[in-house]
């Protein structure tokens, strides 16, 4: 029986992590594009929130990997860290389907022992398919926040791009002001500031995002929307990856909506996809604009280190967008 060494990531592990990562995700997936070193560095060592990786090593081989991308989250006026679970897997030669708990769960348990605390990360979330949701609930204490629906809009013929929205190359300090304005009534949300937004969208090493902004009085940022063409959750889906507009600014919202529609049409998207928490006025507004809430097999699951930060709190107070999901 293998005696694994469990430990957090150390500088120099990158190569062996990528070897196992690319082996695992290429299984049965001929279209898989191997992750590059610069992509790995973007996801982990360049993440402004820090690095959260726990490895199970068999000698030099990464036998299992459990990781998160932590983000700065504003919760009731205070900032803390919350992470999205990503890239969690076991090397094919180290899987033991009949043993419970297996190496996956053991590695995850050590990850949570190490990092789930107010000093590191207050909690974690993940978008799970039914099988991983079942295991996460049973063995890793995940709770259901919601069955994740997608707001979907079929594309219609579009007019010219609206005059009020402009494409931007990068976000600046005005994003944080807009975020503060929009988030004052939210229970908690990943902080949308210049640093996070540029890391998440502008510097992404694989995906190309189009960022639209609408200017407000005095040069303020009145709202923004981020778009990308993707093959998830459906082929040629236009993703509304992020949306930040004060709920009362319907005109700004309509301008950004038209900019995204025009761009999606131009890039050959067959539908547009977004997510909004149901408590947001934008959820109902997008319904009025013809976006339909459609069910999916995904579960938005989370856990935290505080009993009060439970599924009720998260469901009724957490601002979520596709930006919160690494697949987008």
């Amino acid at each position, binding site marked *: 029986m293998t005696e694994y060494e469990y430990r957090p990531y150390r500088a120099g592990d990158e190569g062996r992590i990528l070897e196992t990562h690319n082996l695992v995700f290429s299984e049965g997936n001929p279209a898989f594009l191997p992750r590059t070193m610069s992509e790995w560095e973007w996801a982990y060592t360049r993440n402004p929130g820090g690095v959260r990786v726990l490895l199970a090593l068999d000698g030099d081989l990464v036998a299992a990997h459990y990781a998160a991308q932590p983000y700065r989250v504003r919760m009731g006026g205070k900032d803390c860290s919350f992470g999205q679970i990503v890239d969690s897997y076991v090397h094919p030669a180290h899987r033991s389907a009949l043993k419970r708990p297996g190496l996956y769960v053991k590695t995850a*348990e050590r990850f949570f022992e190490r990092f789930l605390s107010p000093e590191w990360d207050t909690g974690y979330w993940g978008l799970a398919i*039914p099988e991983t*949701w*079942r295991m996460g*609930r*049973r*063995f*890793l*204490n995940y*709770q*259901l*926040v*919601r*069955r994740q*629906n997608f707001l979907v809009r079929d594309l219609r013929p579009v007019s010219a791009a609206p005059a009020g929205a402009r494409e931007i190359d990068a976000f600046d300090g005005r994003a944080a002001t807009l975020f503060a304005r929009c988030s004052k009534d939210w229970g908690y949300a990943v902080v949308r500031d210049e640093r996070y937004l540029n890391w998440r969208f502008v510097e992404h090493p694989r995906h190309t995002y189009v960022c639209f902004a609408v200017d407000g009085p005095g040069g303020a940022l009145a709202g923004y929307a981020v778009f990308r063409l993707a093959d998830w959750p459906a082929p040629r889906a236009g993703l509304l990856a992020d949306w930040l507009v004060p709920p009362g600014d319907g005109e700004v919202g309509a301008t950004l909506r038209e900019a995204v529609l025009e761009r999606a049409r131009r890039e050959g998207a067959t539908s547009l996809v977004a997510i909004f*928490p*149901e*408590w947001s006025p934008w*959820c*109902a507004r997008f*319904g*009025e604009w013809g976006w*339909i*809430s*459609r*069910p999916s097999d995904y579960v938005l699951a989370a856990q935290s280190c505080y*009993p009060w930060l*439970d*599924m*009720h709190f998260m*469901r*009724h107070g957490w601002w979520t967008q596709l930006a919160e999901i690494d697949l987008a």
Partner: protein
Amino acid sequence: MGETTGFQIRAYRPGDEDSILAGMARAIAREEEPSLRAPSEAVWRWRYLDAPDGSCIRLAVDPEGRVLAHFAGVILRVLVGGKIQRWVAVDDSFGDPSAAAGLGRHRPFLAAMRAFAQDFGGPPPDRHPVLYGLPTRRVLRFSYHLGLPTRHAKRRGDPVLDWEMVRESCVLRLDPGSPGEAEVGDVAVEETASFPEEVGRLFERAAAGWGALAVRDARFLNWRFAAHPEHRYDVGLARRRADGALLGYAVYRLAEFEGRREGLLCDWLVPAGEDGAAVALRRWGARRARADGASLAILIPDTAPEWIAFQEAGFRLHPARDFLAVLPAQRRLDANGLYRNWYTTLADFPRLA
């Protein structure tokens, strides 16, 4: 049934009502949700003593006869893969918070909850393969902290407390000023206060599209709606004008729901393909709600075809407070399977509306 320190777990006995209702009022006063209400004795008796397929009750009672905890549910017949099972809609569960101080204050409630699951949950035909309900935030915390095997390093989880979440609840709501739908087909809506026997045949047609659906026959529906001791429901029967065939029905009531005055579509059954009936019933509901000066709302699963149709008709998505939780005794009836295959409306939750 059994004795634990300071209280006994047992079934309901005639005469317990006063103590049950007094304890329930005290417990509800402590909940975080202000719209929760203790039922009257007439409603409690209707719910648990008059239910056509019976009920399940476990009480924690102290030596003076005071009810310290109450865990109760209504038995509903559910058509699952062509066979009838008996599931339990757990509706009124409480622990009297004044019974004890400190950590011991939850013991009677937990004991009643455990006894309920052990005595009633289990495989058919003798037991109830699914116990379900809309637990309060407090009960969900019990389930989460005591049910799962991984929560405590030195203590195994308690599987009878390990309720699974099927889904969060969402309301589809049509605001009073929304534009009306155009009529489709030759369908008329007949208003009535009770259900005719022919609704059973409609149920059989509708059930074909679902893995699990509570039996909506005249016996159940007339108990659930027509015989309610306090609420007045209006039933809309959608009939084909040409031959009077029943194509679908809806049940409407103006109610306080989660602190908001709504025209509620408390039940909705329209077989797949009967689009004209669906439109006619939505128009009927919208007219009723408009007359009441209220929005029109419905709770249906997002996996139902109606979920899309209602949105296309102008209904908008809003969150509801509760999560639907189950304690299943069969793997195929786990939360993921029920999420995809089980059709529910407010009719399946006799406490709600």
